[in-house]
């Protein structure tokens, strides 16, 4: 059916439009350097947004992702710095830190999940609470300042952000891999199917012998792991963590998810939508940097307008449905 195609294509069309604006605004926009920059940049929010797609599809919400990212960054840096003296190989240290990162992410997700499903507290409150907790903890860990990665390790680790494979930086490959895996998970496995069912109608899901609590908890764990992966490619970029790291990532991630066509009330989610949404947000920021026809003070306004219009355009095609 053509209408279904339009509906799926909506975010892509909006993305193309913004891309077109970019081309018009600056010659440099299409340079290889700029394009890879955009891709690498959007990978953080993109990966977080992919996790958020699961949570939102299953009817939840997670506001703690930004501060969880900061907290994991902090933990990774402290861990690596403390291992410098005991382990010789910087690569081994980095790998250990990556493992720890995923572990912390998973546990944090589990905590969010259990608090919402077992303790039956609204996800909004739980994750608003954990958001405050992680942010405080990282400030505490950094003594109010900034945690910096040991220079030697940073040098080795920075390859993860800056090196390229077939012309594309590693983060882009990671982003792609996460997207493909998530796509398969959401659309081709039992678990993904259950996410849709739980988000769409919890009672029906329960009546269909689906363990609703387990599915929901699993989405939070996935979100935690996605944040951990995003952090793994974030830390080598800036090599530090502070109370300011990852601020407002949660809003950006949720915006990306919804721009991509996932429904905030749950029951319908699209991984590619989240990817497109993340790209779109990054593109808007990039384009605003390419031109000085807009006062810097008004960046936020232009961003807001473009997001609303982009979503409107894709909804326009929905409504024919």
């Amino acid at each position: 059916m053509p209408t279904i195609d339009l509906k799926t294509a909506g975010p892509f069309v909006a993305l193309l439009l913004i891309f077109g604006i970019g081309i018009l605004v600056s010659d440099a926009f299409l340079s290889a350097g700029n394009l890879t920059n955009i891709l690498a940049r959007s990978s953080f929010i993109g990966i977080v947004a992919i996790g958020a797609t699961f949570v939102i599809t299953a009817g939840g919400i997670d506001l703690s992702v930004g501060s969880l990212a900061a907290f994991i960054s902090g933990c990774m840096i402290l861990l690596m710095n403390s291992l410098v003296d005991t382990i010789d190989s910087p690569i081994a240290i980095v790998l250990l830190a990556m493992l720890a990162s995923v572990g912390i992410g998973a546990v944090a997700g589990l905590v969010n999940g259990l608090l919402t499903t077992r303790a039956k507290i609204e996800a909004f409150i739980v994750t608003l609470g954990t958001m405050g907790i992680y942010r405080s903890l990282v400030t505490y860990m950094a003594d109010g300042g900034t945690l910096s990665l040991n220079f030697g390790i940073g040098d080795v680790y920075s390859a993860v952000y800056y090196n390229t494979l077939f012309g594309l930086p590693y983060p882009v490959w990671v982003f792609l891999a996460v997207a493909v895996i998530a796509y398969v998970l959401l659309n081709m496995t039992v678990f993904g199917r259950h996410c849709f069912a739980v988000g769409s109608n919890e009672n029906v899901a329960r009546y269909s012998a689906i363990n609703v609590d387990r599915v929901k908890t699993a989405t939070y764990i996935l979100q935690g792991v996605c944040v951990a992966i995003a952090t793994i490619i974030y830390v080598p970029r800036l090599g530090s963590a502070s109370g300011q790291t990852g601020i407002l990532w949660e809003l950006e991630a949720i915006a990306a998810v919804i721009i991509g066509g996932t429904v905030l009330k749950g029951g319908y989610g699209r991984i590619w939508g989240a990817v497109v949404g993340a790209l779109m947000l990054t593109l808007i920021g990039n384009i605003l940097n390419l031109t000085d026809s807009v006062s810097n003070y008004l960046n936020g306004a232009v961003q807001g307008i473009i997001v609303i219009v982009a979503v409107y355009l894709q909804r326009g095609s929905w409504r024919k449905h």
Partner: protein
Amino acid sequence: MTATATSNPIVLSLRNLRKAFGAVTVLQDIDLEIRAGEVLALLGENGAGKSTLVKILAGFESVTAGELLLHAVAAEGNVRVDAHWQQARAEAEGVILIHQELNLVEQLTVAENIFLGHELTRGPFLDKFTMRRLTREYLAALECDIDPDTPMHTLAVSAKQMVEIAKTQSKQARVLILDEPTAVLTQKESQVLFALIERLRQQGVAIVYISHKLDEIAQIADRITILRDGTLVGHYAAQDLSQDDMARLMVGRELSDLFPPRSSTPDYQQCALRVTRLLVAGTNTPVSFELQRGEILGFAGLVGSGRTALLETVVGLRAAARANTGTLEVADKPVVLRDLATARRHNIAYLTKDRKGSGLLLDKGLVMNFSLFALSNYAGLLIHKKQEEVALAAVVDAFDIRIKDANVLAGNLSGGNQQKLLLAKMLAAKPSVLIFDEPTRGIDIGTKGQIYQFINQLAASGHSIILISSDITEIIGLSDRVAVMYHGDLTGILKDDEIEEHEIMRYATGLKSRQQIPVPIQRAIG
């Protein structure tokens, strides 16, 4: 109370069951045996506790007191399971329940719904291909022509019910429980279902069947268990009971004639509602009809023939086709009904057939649901809560809504009582033109008579009524005239002697058509 002795092995049994929600007991002293290869019918008035009972059997509700026993296939050594009888366990043991209300995920497709909770996989992945193929097979066995990839929310209710039924074939049932499965099905579809039930019975599956349609019970049941107000009336062999017996035992008194004689005739001089050349979205034949003052105009047709679509368009709940040039007159004055609020202002009310999806706020109490449609009648600047409560109490009485707990949520009412509440909600607006879409869906036989009487009285007092129903005896028994639809087209309006089952069916299946209104060639340029 003589239980009929059959030799079939017992699969599941209940002893001395009691079930309470909070302080309210809804079932007590229930003994029941479910035997393989047998159709056991459960009968009872609305709110008698049938649905609650079968939910307990299938592990959706816990047992408050008493024993639930699972009998081993070998007929020896039965296990008491009531303490940990959960739905997953029940399903593993082959106890499958089709709920009274649809339990489908609207956003998923037909195939996805059918395998929800027990998806087939190949390796770690969903085996979509096989699930689609099996879905097609299951639906074909039900003579149901639906594409497995259709999103659920685009299906009509009867199709959804068929999907519910198809769902059971994807599970290995030892006990199949059907709670009012035919409430939303046509006769033809019902017969297909009965054929399936018969096949399963032959294979030794135990069937528990709930319905308010007594002719169906007579047709398929081996044994009948009757409940009244949460207690057991008795177990009977089906051949021992006539339909009258069933009704009497259920209600506990003699029933008067179901269809009382009409005490009034319509006033054919006064037109209450005139629809002229209305073009419903998705159709290409404009429809015209008139409703007179004091008339009951029946709308017959097969499910999906477009009756709901037509009347929802009339009252403004749906947009008409773009090319629509039709007009609408209420009491001979042209009106435009943009939405239901406008319709209500012209004293038109519409009763939806989808009580769960668009009828009641399931998570709200009775008062709030009852007054929602006509709230301004109970409010000045502020809502008069006392007035609301008094009015509700009156209709609870008038419609015999059985509530054991005044604070019950609408979603926890029995299906039939929900339907009554919905009727009361619509009538609270005191409309003069009433459009009923399947008003007696899920209503017990005793109350049905009361509702028919009520509709008659409304007509006698000058109200004009449109009655959409898939129950052809209801249409014939009540209507002054019968409009018949086929494929979105109004094929005929029958009067007097023409109102007869076979004639209606001829129009309903497109064999006959009276109104040959030419299709307009010109299309309005949007």
